[in-house]
């Protein structure tokens, strides 16, 4: 008794192959749609913004006059903000991930913590702004400083970094750890020499996404009361500052039409900022991937 009838198989073959093609087209369509939206956005921004994009724009402070308005304070402010967010969020995020994956015993408490971390990733950013306002700006009296904003933003992106780092650490094969422990390595040696080198590409991928989000985030900063236009550069981490998205937001809501073009120029600067930041992270990641 044969269960597979060849004629039926050949008849169905055509349907199967067609279905295969149809789904390929659907996925291609989805990709094209996303790409199209991105391209249209870029074309519009670039055509509007390039006119205002010159050295003066980068080197001037904010102004009432569109032709004099510049992005210097915001650019430097965003850079300083990154200097706080990147180390703080990555140290705490990766540290938490290592603890949860490598040290913590699996029990109800860790399950509870795990669940909360995942939930935190879905909390609206404005809620983190309110938290930052209460804790960092008022309780620790850091004011509307880079440090206060940096800590707030770090909290905002921590869940994403933790979850990404956990996934990356979990993906390191158990056999690798066993090999290391089997030779008398301590937990710390195993983590630094075996687990992290293999996990770093994954950790960085998650961190890049999270940091990009932090660079573009506006809402928590509005809640913290970060000023939008400053006529000076920050002189330290406790100094006042402004950031690129805040500055762009301010320009975009102004009535004069020229400021729309200034905002577009600001967006171009923000995108270049992001591209540079991501390139650095990707370079580091590739260096590790090549080594192993």
């Amino acid at each position: 008794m044969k269960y597979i009838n060849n004629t039926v198989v050949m008849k169905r073959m055509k349907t199967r192959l067609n279905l295969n093609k149809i789904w390929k087209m659907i996925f291609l369509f989805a990709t094209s749609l996303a790409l199209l939206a991105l391209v249209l956005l870029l074309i519009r921004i670039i055509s509007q913004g390039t006119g205002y994009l010159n050295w003066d724009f980068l080197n001037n402070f904010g102004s009432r006059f569109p032709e004099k308005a510049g992005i210097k304070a915001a650019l430097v402010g965003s850079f300083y903000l990154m200097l706080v967010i990147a180390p703080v969020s990555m140290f705490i995020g990766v540290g938490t991930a290592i603890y949860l994956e490598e040290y913590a015993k699996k029990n109800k408490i860790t399950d509870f913590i795990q669940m909360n971390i995942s939930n935190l990733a879905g909390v609206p950013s404005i809620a983190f702004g309110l938290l930052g306002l209460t804790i960092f700006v008022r309780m620790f009296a850091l004011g509307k400083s880079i440090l206060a904003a940096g800590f707030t933003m770090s909290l905002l992106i921590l869940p994403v970094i933790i979850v990404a780092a956990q996934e990356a650490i979990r993906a390191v094969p158990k056999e690798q750890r066993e090999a290391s422990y089997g030779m008398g390595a301590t937990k710390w040696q195993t983590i630094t020499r075996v687990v992290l080198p293999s996990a770093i590409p994954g950790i960085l991928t998650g961190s890049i996404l999270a940091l990009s989000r932090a660079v573009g985030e506006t809402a928590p900063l509005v809640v913290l009361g970060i000023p939008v236009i400053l006529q000076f550069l920050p002189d330290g981490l406790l100094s006042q500052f402004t950031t690129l998205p805040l500055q762009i937001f301010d320009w975009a809501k102004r009535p004069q039409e020229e400021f729309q073009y200034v905002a577009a120029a600001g967006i171009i600067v923000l995108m270049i900022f992001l591209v540079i930041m991501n390139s650095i992270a990707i370079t580091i990641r590739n260096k590790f991937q090549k080594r192993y």
Partner: protein
Amino acid sequence: MVDLKTKNENEKLIIKSPSQVDREASPSIEKSTVFETKNFDLWYGDHHALKDINLSIKENEVSAIIGPSGCGKSTYIKALNRMVELVPSARTTGEIIYRGRNIFDASYEVEELRTRVGMVFQKPNPFPKSIYDNIAYGPRIHGIKNKKILDEIVEKSLRGAAIWDEVKDRLNQNAYGLSGGQQQRICIARCLAIEPDVILMDEPTSALDPISTLKVEELVQELKDNYSIVIVTHNMQQAARISDKTAFFLNGEVVEFDNTDKIFSTPTDQRTEDYISGRFG
């Protein structure tokens, strides 16, 4: 359970005439005991995986552990270097004495034990690093930084694992590029690099082709002169070929532990005979 009577008789025999007992007669009168397992029990959660194990493993011998799947043989070998502790639900009672100290004593640091008791795993598990860095891993974690000393250790270990000639020209290449059999010998070399006293092998040839298996088996025979080896194997012919002593595990118990010759020719227990003659398992 060990047939205590047989064991005691053996010990007497060893004292009287070692050459009769030991196939590979050693010059010393009595081989010293490396591992003495006393009334050892192990649970994974509610599952009683090892029941009242009593075994003694002698120096410079190959001790094979055979038995059907799930009989606890891998669990036992992993208890010897406390790798079982990586399983959160594992719980033990009883003692395993290694060179006079109970390895489960609170004061016994597991890192110290594993420095003396190396392990080769079932699936070759080299690190995704160069061959050199794989071998140097152990010495490095124990604090050796001198490049010249490391070079010597790497060469000595690779020679010891009979793979030096195959890899000496590509020490800086990733160990993942080697064949499965070569990877396993790299893992053995990596284990030798920490200069252990005992080498535990958990089915080291189960993922290898027959030629690689043969090479590893020959290697085990050579290593015996300098190390004590405990090897878990699915393959009864392998146990018969390479071991001096064989323990037959069944359902978490030691059914019989004796000289390999005896186990495979005139086993005392009916279950052992059934197993080695292929009636089950």
